[in-house]
Every structure is written in C-alpha cells, then in structure tokens.
C-alpha cells in the first residue's frame, strides 16, 4: 500500500513538472518539441511492451501508429465537412486505440507464432506491405502527398478550440500520463508477468499451461492499441500525415529510442524518447551525418551495453543501496574515462563532418564550421588536428578505462561480500 502511495505521489510530481514546462520554455520551438516528445513517449513505451516486456522485436510497429493517424485525420475531415457526427477532439486517441487494436489483433494473430528473428522478419514484411499500399490505395492514403486536416472542428467546450499549440500540448500531456500509467500497471498484472515469462522461457510457460502464442498475441494487440493512441495524437499535433508515418524509417526510429534508452527497464524507453527526440530536432539541422551517428550509437549500445542507458544506471543500484561511499569513489575514474573518450569522439566527429562536407556540400569551398569553429576541409592542418585528437583519446582511454573497470570490479566485489555476509 505504501508503495502504491509513493508511486502515486511521484506521478503527481511528474505531471506538475510537465505541466509547468511550457511556462519555463516559452519559444514555439520548445513547445513543438515538447509535443513531439509526448507523442513519442507513448509510442516508445507501447513499443517496449513488445520488445522489452514480451521479447518480440518488431520492424513494423509504425503500421498501427500510422494507420491510426490516417483514420483520425479522415474522421476529423468528416466532422469538418459534416458528413460524420461530432466527436469530441479530446477523445480522439480512443479512435486511434481502436484502429490500432483492430489491425494489431489481425496482424498479430498471423505473426506471433514464434518470437525472435522469424517474428522480426515477418513484421518487416507487413510494414513493407502497408507502405506499398499507401502508394496504391490513393483514395485513402493520397500517395506521397499524404492527407491534411484542420483540427478546429465542431463546438468549443469551455472555449477550448485546440487551435493554439499550447492546448494540444496539454491534451498530449494528459493522454501521455494516462496511457503510460496504464502501461505501467499492465506490467504489474499477472498478464504482464506472463509476458515476461513467455519472453524468458517459452517452453516452461507452455508447460504451466499457458498458450504462449495467445499471450504474445494479446501483448501484441495491446501494444498496437497504445501505438494507435499515439498515432492519433501525432495526427492532431501536425494536422497532416504522410506515408512515411507507417514506414520502416518510423519503425526503426522507435526501435532506436526504446533500445538506446533501455528496453529492460520501464523508464528506459521514456529516457530514449526524450533524449533522441531532442537530439533529432537539434542536431538534424546542424549535421548531415546525424543518421550515421545514430546508427553508430545504436550498434555500440548493442555491443557494449545491451541494457541501454537505463541499464547502465540500474547497474549501480546495488552499490548505492549497500555502500554509497563506493559510489562517490566511482565518480573520479568515470569522469576521466568519459573525458578521454570524448576527446576521441570530437576528433572522429571532425573527420566525419569534413568528409561529408567535401562529398556533399562543398562547391569548391573549403570552409566548414565544426563545433562553432571554422576549419578548412581542404587544408592539411585541420585533418592533423582531428586525427591527433582521435589518437590522443585512444591513448588516454587505454589508461583510464582499465582504471575505471578496476574500481568498478572492486566496488562490486565489496557489495557482493556485504550481501553474502548479511
């Protein structure tokens, strides 16, 4: 009971902070960014119901997100043209949820016989099929142009028109809190536990008497339902939707967010959605190579930290619980390790940016701005500087990383000893 109360208060605090954010950041860029984050948090947490909770890697989850978006825009247009009865805008995510649940149940039924790589292949096939359909069934999808709408339709209860972006932000915030809370509660129910069991050991789950396929199917349908709610909000937020919203790129983006944030922990996808949306909005204008960096970060996370960012944080939980002095002892070696790797990364980014500049942008010019400084991409000196930084970072890492690992190993062994001692 105390736990429920504690998490409830935490929830309220988060809600208050999120509600106050637009007052702190007044620019319209910040508001657009916050709206986008809210939508993607719902989508990523829904996606993680599959990937993290159910152990199903999907390359096609944008189908439900996108189709719900298309449906919402058509219904909004229908209300605007008065061919459809009025439906309150506040409840539009419910429409998206129904659309997502509908398609998720159908597609989930044929694709959840097996998890793992076979499931991933099939999900990609479905994603390609729906993407191809957007270009064929022009009456519904309108091809590459996509469809537009005006979200200000029907009566205005309490003077809320959902015209201004700030009103959409509070709508997104409300649904974000509600859906994320629901998804959190689902992880705590017996059904959520069964999802984990099916993920970890399908044979044993089947022996207890559960239909493994049925559990996967239900998880798939629920996850699609929440993805549909997110898609509806996406459509309301932008007032338009295009074929890219159902495509592999959108599915890949949500996979990146969930996995880099940390698929094993409930908060991981939220961290990933906030972090990557922010980076995507700010860096995509600054560099051509943003997708390359994203691919590299993702691959490195898969190789060295499969728990994602949340996994790295949670890893330190036992140390913090038993002996916080050890935790403060870790700070110094960590900082030196991170510092040395950052030097190398700066050099690497410099080289990549100059290569991109030379092949894509430069028209005989040599001046390229990297880290707010002007470099000559054709001059030998800038190349020497960046290669030197890479080498320096490499040499320093050789020293600082073993040191950090040593301190970490020591801390963990102390913790283990203390736990067994108790």
């Amino acid at each position, binding site marked *: 009971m105390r736990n429920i109360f504690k998490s409830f208060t935490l929830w309220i605090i988060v809600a208050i902070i999120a509600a106050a954010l637009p007052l702190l950041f007044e620019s319209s860029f910040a508001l657009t960014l916050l709206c986008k984050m809210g939508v993607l948090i719902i989508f990523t947490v829904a996606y993680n119901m599959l990937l993290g909770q159910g*152990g199903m*890697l999907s*390359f096609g989850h944008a189908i439900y997100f996108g189709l719900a978006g298309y449906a919402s825009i058509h219904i909004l247009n229908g209300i605007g043209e008065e061919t459809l009865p009025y439906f309150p805008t506040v409840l539009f995510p419910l429409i998206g949820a129904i659309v997502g649940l509908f398609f998720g149940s159908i597609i989930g039924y*044929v*694709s959840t*016989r*097996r998890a*793992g*790589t*076979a499931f*991933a*292949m*099939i999900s*990609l*096939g*479905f*994603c*390609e*099929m729906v993407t*191809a*359909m957007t*270009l*064929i*069934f*022009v*009456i519904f999808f309108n091809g590459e142009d996509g469809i537009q709408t005006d979200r200000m339709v029907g009566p205005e209860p309490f003077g809320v028109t959902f015209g201004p972006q700030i009103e959409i932000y509070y709508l997104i915030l409300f649904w974000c809190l509600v859906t994320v809370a629901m998804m959190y509660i689902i992880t705590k129910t017996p059904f959520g536990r069964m999802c984990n069991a099916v993920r970890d050991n399908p044979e044993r789950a089947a022996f207890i008497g559960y239909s493994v396929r049925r559990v996967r199917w239900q998880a798939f349908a629920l996850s699609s339902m929440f993805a549909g709610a997110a898609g509806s909000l996406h459509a309301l937020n932008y007032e338009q939707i295009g074929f890219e919203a159902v495509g*592999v790129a959108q599915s*890949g983006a949500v*996979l990146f967010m969930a*996995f880099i944030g940390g698929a094993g922990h409930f908060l991981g996808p939220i961290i990933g959605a906030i972090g990557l949306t922010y980076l995507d909005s700010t860096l995509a204008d600054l560099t051509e*190579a943003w*997708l*390359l960096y*994203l*691919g*590299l970060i*993702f*691959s490195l996370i*898969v*190789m060295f930290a*499969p728990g994602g960012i949340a996994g790295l944080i949670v890893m330190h939980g036992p140390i913090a619980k038993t002996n916080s002095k050890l935790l403060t002892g870790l700070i110094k070696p960590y900082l030196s390790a991170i510092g040395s790797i950052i030097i190398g990364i700066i050099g690497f980014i410099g080289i*990549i940016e100059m*290569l*991109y500049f030379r*092949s*894509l942008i430069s028209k005989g010019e040599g001046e390229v701005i990297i880290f707010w400084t002007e470099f000559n991409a054709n001059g030998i000196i800038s190349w020497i500087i960046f290669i030197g930084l890479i080498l320096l970072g490499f040499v320093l890492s050789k020293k600082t990383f073993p040191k950090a690992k040593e301190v970490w190993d020591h801390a963990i062994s102390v913790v283990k000893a203390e736990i067994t001692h108790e």
Partner: protein
Amino acid sequence: MDVIFFTLFNGLMYGMLLFMLSSGLTLIFGMMGVLNFAHASFFMLGAYFAYQISKYIGFIPALFIAPLIIAFCGAMVEKYALRRVHKFGHVAELLFTFGLFYIIEELVQMIWGKVPVGYHVPEFMDFTLFSMSGMGYQAYAIFTLLVSIAIFLALFSVLTKTRVGLIIQAALTHPEIVSSLGHNVPKVFMLVFGLGCALAGLAGVLAGNTLGTEPSMALSLGPIVFVVIVVGGLGSLKGALVASILIGVLQTAAISLDVSINSFIETIGLTVNIESLWHILIDLTISQVAPILPYLLLVVMLIIRPRGLFGNRDV
C-alpha cells in the same frame, strides 16, 4: 505465347538475382541463426565497389575483386562485432546488423553522394544476343543468368557433396562435436558469413548496372529477401531457390497484366454500380498492386503453411 515466354524469362532473371541474394542470407541464417539485416547493404556495396573498380580497370576484374572485398568486410564484421554480440542471443545480433544497415547506407552517401552513380552495363556485352519473335535478349542479361545458375550449382554441390560442405552442415547442428573433432568452429562461421556476404556482393555487381546503383537500393530489396526466406522455409537452400523464382515470376508477370476486377466482371457481361469512392478499388489493375504481391504471398504462406515451402520447422 511469346509474351508468356518473355515474362517467364524476365521473371527467371529477377528470380535468380533474388536467389543469389537470399542464398547467402539463408546460408548464414540456417547455419548460425544470425539474421543479417544488413545483407542487402552488402549487395549495395557490391554494386558501388564494382562501379568504382570498373571505372579504373574494367568490368571483368571488378566481377572478381568486388565480391572478394565484400567477403573480407563480412568476415571482419563477423569476427569483431557479431561474435561479441553472440552471447546476448540472436535478437541482439539482428539488432546489431540493423544498426550496421544504417551505418553502411550513410557511409555510401558520404562517399558516393545521394544521387545514383553511372554504373553501366559493360560495352562488350551491351548488344542483343538473339531475338525471338520481336523480343531482343541482351547478352548481359544472359550472362547474368548463366552466372547465377553456375553459382547455384556450385553452392549446392559444395554443400552436399564435399567434405567442406559436410563440416559446415555438421557445425550447424552439432557445433560442440565438430569442434571436439578438431575443427575451428568460429572460423567456419566467419568463413560462411564472408561467403554469404560475397554472394550478396556478387549479386550487386551483376544487378547494380541494370537496377541502378543508389543509396536506397538496399532498402528496396532487403525486405523482399526476407520474404523469400520465410516463404522458402527457414534455412532451406532449395526453398530459397523455388521461392525466389516464384516471387520473380509473380512480380514480372503481375506488372504486364493490365487486368482489374472490374474488367473481369465486364467480360462476363455484368456492370457494377458502386459509389465512385469504392470504384477505385475494383478498378485497380494487377500491375498496380504488383509491389504488394510478395508480401501477400508471405501472409498467405503464414496462414496456410507456416513452415514455408521446404522448411522443417514452423515460423
């Protein structure tokens, strides 16, 4: 009749290209359980390398050098990255290759730009070899077909008839026993991964000049290759062959069929009066829906025969 033959021939051409791509993937997947999302990226790299090499020393050297470089790249990816990820399971391996897919696509854009490069059919094979009832058959197309058939025969005989093939097949099912017999199983895996990538690279060399060499070519073929593997049966080389040709013929045949549901209804003497909005649905010709046919085949296969054509386990 001629049209049917021509369609079948083109379908076979496209199907054999798909087979070259998917044979490498199915080999890797069947042996190591690794689903390589970046497989079509190696196909793309093959085309770009062939373009670069044939610019300097000609097409024939490129035909041999480009797949070798790809094989080396693939082996390095296996040795230094996949082997490390292996302990986290097959899904982690798939995730890693998904990241690799993005990296390769971006690197290709960085080096060769975003627009297609001018990789052309070599001049000495750019002529009509023979023509049948008005349809000309380009020498290069015949050459591609012959190479892909040769690859299939070589692959099949090596895997089933030779000692190397036996070791490879045994390493798939019983890695511990094979390694205790003194074979270096990780090395076998590395070589198989390299070989699979080289096959994709070779397909890229052969098809890059007819399909167009551009950064999006990996994404346009990759999903179809996955469909081939599922339809053919996971890990079955024979299944990959049949499924490739099936999908190749299906897609080329569909493109030339200008028939819709409505025209069919009209030929049997009926007229349909539906509201204008839904009329578009029955007016869709088969050639218009051609892009989704492979995926429809996937869905139908999943419902009626989940193990694929020649597979021995359910998907």
